């Protein structure tokens, strides 16, 4: 029993030492990679520099916009600008939403229209107790109302 315990301890120690060595190797490797990352070719450095300049100009523009709003106090203008920008960005999405809304409206109206006009359909006429001529008779409705009274 005691022997098993000591074997387990030795195994654990060995695993710990191994993982510590792995970790050190990983740190050394990442140091080397970090060092290597500092030596990029001219084209890549140029592209990165341009990207950075673009990002900074983006920040400058948005800060200037914000400063302008603070000065003029026109919150509505800010909302309007934001809406316009979003509208430009999501024009396709807006168009799609409008088309879907139109299709949905058409579908609903059509469904409702069928229900409303069911008394003018052939099925209604054929299934009714009265002959079809009775519905075509102009005086029938008047006669029906007078009968009810």
């Amino acid at each position, binding site marked *: 029993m005691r022997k098993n315990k000591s074997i387990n301890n030795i195994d654990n120690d060995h695993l710990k030492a191994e*993982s510590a060595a792995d970790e050190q190797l990983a740190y050394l490797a990442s*140091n*080397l*990679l970090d060092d*290597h990352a500092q030596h990029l*070719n001219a084209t*890549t450095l140029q592209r990165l520099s341009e990207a*950075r300049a673009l*990002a900074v100009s983006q*920040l400058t523009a948005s800060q200037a916009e914000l400063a302008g709003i603070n000065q003029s106090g026109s919150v509505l203008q800010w909302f309007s600008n934001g809406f316009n920008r979003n509208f430009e960005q999501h024009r396709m999405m807006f168009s799609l939403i409008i088309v879907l809304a139109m299709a949905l409206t058409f579908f609903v109206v059509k469904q409702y229209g069928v229900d409303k006009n069911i008394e003018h359909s052939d099925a209604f006429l054929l299934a009714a107790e009265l002959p079809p001529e009775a519905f075509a008779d102009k005086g029938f409705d008047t006669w029906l109302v007078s009968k009810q009274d």
Partner: protein
Amino acid sequence: MATSKELSDFLEAVERRAFKQTAYAVRDDHAALDIVQDAMMKLAEKYGDKPVAELPLLFQRILQNTMRDFWRRQKVRNLWTSLLSSFGNSEDGEDRDPLDTLDVEDDSDEPSVVLERSQTIKLIESALKKLPTRQREAFVLRYWEDMDVAETASIMGCSDGSVKTHCSRAVHALASELRRQGIDKLGLSNLISSKLGSRS
């Protein structure tokens, strides 16, 4: 709120590492440059009002998300590319200047040391590229970016335990691969110390 100067300094400090990390992940330098540029723009656009101290974490999270977007788009594109593969374009390299794409190395060292370092880095890069995506992410953030477990978990969108597991597996796989290639701790230490020695 970060000023333009602070943002510029921050980006200048991280851009090279970000590019290399992205290049290891997507295995395409041009795509990596686009991804880094997108991440920079998103940081400036959405988080320009945040304090400078928060920028590293935000930038890393944006970068990882932009990489994921790239892979999603790439999946769709690959489908079409495989369908239309017969219309593949042929590259003509007449306008390319080899000096533009030549990696710059310090020439202050002995040529043999420079060669050894470059070979070792290539092996490390290759081992890093072989790692599964999540393991590579965890390794890069924890060991290269020197972030703690909680920060890494927050960027990767998983638990602390998962980060530890990914890191442990990544480190073990990387170390095994390097040892298999004949690179040990002493060799790497010597390369790093020779580099530091040549700088001083």
